[in-house]
């Protein structure tokens, strides 16, 4: 399973792709089945064609956590939650099931989409 992430240009906020929109919460992100790679590519391409809306668009791998999907890499979990040293800062403040699932997710791995981005640069 995959999701697509970026940072919003105007404020740097972490955002996720949802059917043509960019949303703030990972819980609202559109999830793509692995056999829908072409859809992911198309969505990433659309994101990249919106340079005044978002920067650094890339797909992230997801993993099951407590019956929900969470980013596989801890880097992406920190992006989706906020800094671990300040639990009252960032998206994690809202709490709820998705935030809990992200907090307890394991199966750490490099952020593959991000690594591609760095390589390209």
């Amino acid at each position, binding site marked *: 399973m995959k999701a697509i992430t970026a940072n919003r240009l105007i404020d*740097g906020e972490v955002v996720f792709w949802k059917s043509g929109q960019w949303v703030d919460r990972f819980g609202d992100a559109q999830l793509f089945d692995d056999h829908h790679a072409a859809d992911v590519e198309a969505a990433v391409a659309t994101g990249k064609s919106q340079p*005044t809306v978002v*920067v650094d668009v890339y797909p992230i791998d997801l993993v099951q956590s407590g019956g929900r999907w969470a980013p596989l890499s801890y880097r992406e979990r920190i992006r989706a939650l906020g800094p671990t040293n300040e639990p009252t800062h960032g998206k994690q403040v809202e709490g709820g099931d998705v935030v809990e699932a992200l907090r307890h997710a394991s199966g750490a791995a490099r952020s593959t989409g991000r690594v591609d981005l760095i390589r390209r640069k």
Partner: protein
Amino acid sequence: MYQYDLIDKEFLADRSAEFRGQVARRLSGELTEDQFKPLRLMNGLYLQLHAYMLRVAIPYGSLNPTQARRLAQIARDYDKGYGHFTTRQNIQFNWIKLKDAPEILDKLAEVDLHAIQTSGNCIRNTTSDPYAGATAEEVDDPRVWCEVIRQWSTLHPEFSFLPRKFKIAITASAKDRTAAKVHDIGLLLRQGRDGQLGFEVIVGGGQGRTPYVGPTIKQFLPTDRLLSYLEAILRVYNRHGRRDNIYKARIKILVAALGAEEFARQVEEEWSKIDAARADLPAPELARIRAAFATTPFKTLPARSETFEAAKASDAAFARFVRNNVRPHKLPGYAIVEISLKAQEQTPGDASADQLDVVADLAERYGFNDLRVTHAQNLVLPHIKLDDLPTVFAALQTANLATPNIDLVSDIIACPGLDYCALANARAIPIAQDIARQFADLDRAEQVGELKIKISGCINACGHHHVAHIGILGVDKKGEEFYQLSLGGSGAEDASIGKILGPALPADKVATAVDQLVGAYLAVRTDGERFLDTYRRVGLEPFKEAVYAQAD
């Protein structure tokens, strides 16, 4: 303190207006991200994990209360109420919005602050001794020379697009509080036999993926020739530094490749071609700058303060604070006070807006409007009367700023790490907090004595792990956070690069490992030996055994 003149003020206002235009053009799509990125970086604005980060320059780590209050206001109005002091004496705000950045730069410019030279391949903000102008150890006030370099280097047309970033540190004391030997250029002010002042010039030190303690390329550079000599060094670097490979672009690689002797020869050759009358600073201008730092209206005081002695005798907490955080001043009746930003559970180097206001008030009321930032991510009130120390201590206590741990095991340097930084491989802050918790007992921490732990979340080494007594480097091991320990580094006058202890450890084993290292040290230390001294005497083996024996 140096006061900006009309030229400086107009320059900052222009710069801010220019950036406002650049941001507007980016938001409208007139500029692409690739075009805009170098422009925002020239104004200290990075894109990090959660938001933009603005790095504000604090030239040579020196602030006045008005500036500190403005930083507090920015933390409140545009961030989440705090800022993070860095190992280069700057401050970073972690939650900045691009749309607010021009307004923030305006507000900084109003109090002579800016974000110039905090990013990009230019000569960065020059760092210096936080005790400058206060310690009896120094042969001259290093801030004078930092200010000379600031005026010379800001937007220097020849040196704004160097092969890579370029960092200079200046100290005028034998005890080095600037990590000068691991900078691109370290300038050590010395007094010659005839009483003349000169710089020992160290070039090509650095950390990152290829750490070096820099070699000395000139033993004694007369101070009046500083700018022409710097120009010669930078010219040689600008010409021959490697632009083909970002990992080999720093001057340390060039100096190591040529050898210090050959590099020095090329600098001398270049120097001989430079017209000194054009390049060096005219004496009247130096005198003008010097005068700005010589105006602290100290009083003549007795060396002994009864108020201070009585407080020390009656209040054990105050006595402990004095032992660890108070240093001798050059003048009788005064003291240098270090304010630790390493309280239990605190993020190393973070200060809240309220704390910044408290420190600004103290500097204003008791400290000649003078406040400093250290490269160890703490603050300093450089001129406090002994008579006022108990009052200052009480105010610091109320603001959770009186942690008596300077240079002790819990005074840990940590970069923001993966909690904020887009480059990090692993978190640094929670590791620092784990270790501080392990050594929360202040009696024990004092018994252990000076022990400098420094943590970086990636090989770029912003957390100075290479030059730590115990260095900790976060690595990504098959996608998990692991930590590689190294021992025996020092960023001080006895500079050295640490040696790797053994295989990297998982996050939950690091604090225990530090405890084991301390145990091994205490078992074999002789009187007066610091951790570093013991390590240098006995080597890596006993420490290796302490950490890895059980695991085998």
